[in-house]
């Protein structure tokens, strides 16, 4: 995939990781005590305590890794300096050169085809002579 598409994909990946992170944390966070009037919420050990503590670490590590990957891709961008004008100038130079080489090719091709016709003519004459189709001069 070309690098700009990779960058776009990486940006979308960062977005997906971000909302997955928030969604998972919000879903799995254990309840917290809001006010001293209400009793301590029951600590349901449905989710393993280790799991609940590990997930933010893993997900944030993945997020940071994705961001670093994005930076690496940005560094790999082959942006040539000079901007639009330099590119357009180069394109017109290349077009001129392309035309010149194309005409040279055309000339060579025509000369080669002419020689081919001559050789074919010679062959047909030689073949006719061999087969004695024409009276020799």
């Amino acid at each position, binding site marked *: 995939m070309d690098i700009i598409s990779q960058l776009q994909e990486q940006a979308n990946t960062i977005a997906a990781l971000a909302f997955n992170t*928030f969604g998972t944390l919000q879903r799995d966070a254990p309840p917290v005590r809001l006010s001293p009037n209400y009793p301590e919420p029951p600590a349901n050990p449905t989710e393993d305590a280790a799991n609940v503590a590990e997930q933010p670490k893993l997900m944030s590590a993945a997020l940071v890794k994705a961001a670093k990957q994005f930076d690496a891709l940005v560094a790999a961008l082959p942006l040539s300096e000079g901007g639009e004008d330099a590119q357009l100038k180069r*394109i017109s130079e290349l077009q001129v050169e392309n035309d010149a080489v194309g005409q040279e090719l055309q000339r*060579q091709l025509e000369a080669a085809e002419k020689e081919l016709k001559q050789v074919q003519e010679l062959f047909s004459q030689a073949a006719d002579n061999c087969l004695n189709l024409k009276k020799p001069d």
Partner: protein
Amino acid sequence: MAATATYPPPPPYYKLYKDYTQNPKSAPEPPPPIEGTYVLFGSSYTTDDVLPSLEEQGVRQLYPKGPNIDFKNELRSLNRELQLHILELTDVLIERPSQYARRVEEISLIFKNLHHLLNSLRPHQARATLIHILELQIQRRKQAVEDIKRRREEAQKLLKEALGTLDGH
């Protein structure tokens, strides 16, 4: 089998082309290509395919405007801003959870800017691809010229040799 509508009949212009084989000029010309905006199946399209700027889409532009934008640095700084805003969002969710909306909006703003910047790199990529293709074509043509010259010389050599053997015979 469900009842479906029949296909619409072909447009009646075909009668005008009855004598096309005898006289191509007796039938009407095809319509000229459309320029500007046109309406197709109720929605309007434009023939001028240009990336609309962010202001036209109602989105604030975070990176500086100007003729030459330093894409790499802007992309990197936008990436850093994004990470910062994600951290801010986590903090807001811990302390003042009801104020998430503004942070989420800012994060989506950064993403829109990011994608717009990437999209504006596409014309540059197109020109670079064109340059690459032209260079390849020039190289192939030069190679073909060399090949033809070589073959012609070989053919000349063979003909001379053949002539030599014939004369010597």
